């Protein structure tokens, strides 16, 4: 059997005209329908981002007082995952123009021409509605309302309003990613409390140092796309200081649940140790060998390390919360 030579992922179908082809019994209505695979539709859901969202949502659900039947808990997590993916698909639809000029995102299904923009939008809207309705049916209306709010915040506030207008896009838009532990909590309890608000605040203040570490070594991409990320607008040196300041604010905040007696010592000690590691990473980013305007001379090695650590940090911090709840 002859292997196809030019239909791989990440490749443009340049030269392929929209066609109604009749060959070997194959009819296609256009290049998008023809060349998209199931993996492309899955990629629209930004599965890598979804991982952290699902995990923090699951921890919110685990640490909440009360009990949710495992089937309903699974459904709640599924709804959080699908909603995050749906918001990601709508984001890809809206950002298809800048995705096409950024090296990191040019291979995504829409800019690569494998999925039509309108189909991606319909897919995102349908999955959003599905996630919210099923969440309401399986758990409660309050959890569904917070889920809907998180989708709306990501799509309208972050993607459409802030992302292209202000270097504070990540700071305010980060709230969208902070909703999952709240949704998990509300799915169990049906209401809000101090703890989910603190979990929201922790993810909210974690997002800027996490994302600015990425933007330090991806700033050329953002500059090319005209996205006003902090290193593009205010420079690398200012961004390094902001990473340190936000990290210094974040670490004491993570200790607050322990200080207020909402968690035990396992979480408290984990928060302190992990936080010290995060501060060390931030200071290394600040003291990275750099030129007069703050551009790294080490290919942003400390920023890359800080970005990786920030992901591990949030995973382990929230895992410690769950361990503390069941062991402590």
């Amino acid at each position, binding site marked *: 059997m002859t292997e196809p030579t030019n239909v791989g992922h990440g490749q443009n179908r340049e030269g392929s005209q929209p066609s109604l082809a009749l060959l070997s019994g194959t009819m296609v209505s256009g290049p998008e329908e023809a*060349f998209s695979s199931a993996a492309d539709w899955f990629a629209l859901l930004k599965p890598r981002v979804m991982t952290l969202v699902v995990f923090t949502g699951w921890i919110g659900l685990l640490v909440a007082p009360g009990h949710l*039947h495992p089937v309903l808990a699974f459904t709640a997590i599924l709804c959080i995952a699908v909603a995050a993916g749906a918001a990601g698909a709508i984001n890809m639809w809206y950002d298809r123009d800048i995705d096409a000029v950024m090296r990191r995102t040019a291979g995504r299904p829409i800019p690569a021409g494998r999925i039509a923009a309108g189909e991606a939008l319909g897919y995102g809207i349908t999955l959003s509605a599905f996630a919210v309705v099923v969440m309401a049916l399986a758990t409660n209306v309050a959890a569904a309302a917070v889920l809907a709010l998180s989708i709306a915040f990501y799509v309208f506030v972050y993607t459409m309003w802030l992302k292209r207008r202000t270097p504070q896009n990540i700071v305010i838009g980060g709230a969208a990613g902070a909703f999952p532990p709240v949704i998990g909590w509300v799915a169990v309890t049906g209401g809000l409390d101090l703890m989910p608000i603190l979990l929201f605040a922790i993810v909210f203040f974690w997002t800027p140092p996490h994302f600015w570490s990425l933007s330090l070594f991806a700033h050329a991409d953002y500059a090319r796309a005209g996205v006003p990320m902090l290193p593009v607008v205010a420079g690398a040196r200012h961004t390094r200081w902001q990473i340190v300041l936000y990290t210094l604010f974040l670490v004491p905040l993570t200790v607050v649940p322990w200080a207020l007696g909402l968690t035990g010592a396992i979480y408290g000690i984990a928060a302190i140790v992990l936080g010290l590691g995060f501060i060390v990473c931030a200071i290394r980013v600040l003291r990275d060998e750099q030129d007069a305007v703050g551009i790294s001379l080490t290919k942003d090695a400390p920023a890359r390390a800080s970005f990786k650590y920030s992901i591990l940090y949030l995973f382990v911090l929230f895992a410690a919360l769950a361990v503390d709840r069941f062991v402590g």
Partner: protein
Amino acid sequence: MELLTPLSRADSQAVQRRRRGRNWAMLAALIALVGLFYAITLVKIGQGTMAF
């Protein structure tokens, strides 16, 4: 008027393979959905919270 360009045999096979993949994925999603709604219904009836 839009030009119609036939696909090569290799492209045609790739199209068929991808369409088959999408169809199987859709089937799996539908079966999973049926199973999920069935399980939710059983739990809700068991809890006596099946109120719509």
